[in-house]
């Protein structure tokens, strides 16, 4: 195996952790509000996941590619302009599976543009990454977020509406589960579940990367 292939494989392996043991929501405690309040159905979860994917991957790749060459004051501005522009493609794609999805999910997809990964992680960490590492980090951060969003959205739609992806399955429902406080509580139990699996598998505790640790 060539050196380049080995590096690529190591980068993918490192980024793979963002799916579960380094999950951005359940372990790092990021993007909680958007899920607790906005992710009340499967469709909302899908819309938030698509939007997060379209924001995180380009912003991290952009940060790794040109971030260091920009003056300090212009970096955050550049990342924010890019992430807000990326709302457009996600709006088109989400409109494909429901015309009124952005009415239903409210302001929460737009808030992903100013969430911690594009604002802080891109500047403090991803600027030091290679392009491929930033790309795989973005992909797996978005997939980890999507996994959490889809599980939460499915559970809340099933118990809150008695339906899945809009198809009614049961008459009885518990609408309170769609309120933000239930979102926080469910996310708390999901986070405890991740900790439980980590304990059983004897995996080390994840520590959020600091600026100096991100140096390659």
């Amino acid at each position, binding site marked *: 195996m060539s050196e380049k292939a080995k590096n690529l494989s190591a980068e993918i392996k490192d980024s793979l952790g963002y799916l579960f043991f380094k999950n951005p929501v359940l372990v790092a405690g990021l993007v909680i509000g958007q899920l607790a309040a906005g992710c009340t159905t499967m469709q909302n979860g899908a819309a938030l996941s698509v939007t997060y994917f379209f924001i995180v991957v380009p912003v991290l790749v952009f940060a790794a590619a040109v971030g260091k060459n920009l003056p300090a004051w212009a970096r955050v501005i550049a990342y924010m302009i890019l992430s807000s522009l990326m709302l457009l493609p996600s709006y088109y794609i989400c409109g494909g599976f429901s015309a009124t999805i952005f009415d239903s999910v409210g*302001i929460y997809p737009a808030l992903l543009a100013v969430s911690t990964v594009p*604002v802080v992680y891109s500047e403090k960490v991803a600027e030091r990454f290679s392009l491929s590492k930033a790309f795989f980090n973005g992909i797996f951060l978005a997939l980890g977020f999507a996994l959490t969003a889809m599980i939460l959205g499915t559970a809340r739609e099933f118990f809150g509406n008695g339906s899945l992806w809009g198809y009614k399955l049961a008459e009885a429902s518990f609408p309170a589960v769609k309120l933000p406080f239930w*979102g926080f509580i469910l996310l708390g139990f999901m986070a405890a579940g991740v900790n439980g699996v980590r304990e059983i598998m004897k995996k080390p505790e994840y520590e959020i990367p600091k600026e100096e640790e991100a140096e390659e």
Partner: protein
Amino acid sequence: MTFIAQFFIMMFTALFIENIIFTRALGTSWMFYLVKRPKEIVRYTLMLMAVVTLSGAIGYPLRSLVHENEFRHVLVPMIYIAVMAVVYAGVYFFVKKFLPDEFEHFGSTLGVAVFNCAALGSLLVPAGERLDFLSTIGYGIGMSIGFGIAVVIVGYGLSRLEYCRVPKIFKGVPIALIYLGLLSLAFYGLVGHQLPT
């Protein structure tokens, strides 16, 4: 007089009935960052208030232009993010030139102090509800004060939780989220809401 009354009613609404953290769940990650730095809560609350007030005032006429546009769900956030970028640049150069000590101390967190879900959310909620100018500003100020109060309440509770015997798998993020959920439920009842049935 009616305008002033409207301003204070919207401020009160944003502060208690639609609290930014407990009801709207905006800026929770930023809140968890601040609860570990209690000395900085006042500074960042004032910063949030300044950003929301300035961006709200500058962005109000611009957002009115796209209210009826079919892409308003995307255009309004884009407008506000652009306005926040202008505010960020202004604050950055002002603090760097006139308050160099402050810049040294908190220059690196200036970006997240301006661009966060609490700030953008405080601008998007009034835009979505098509509030007038004074109500938008009042709502933003109420949201900012509500954010500061929420950080203090959550921070106090989490500091007490450190002395409790919490099961190992619930330590850290899980117990913080469950505590926030219960506080949010308490706030929901406190302001007179009833659970949907």
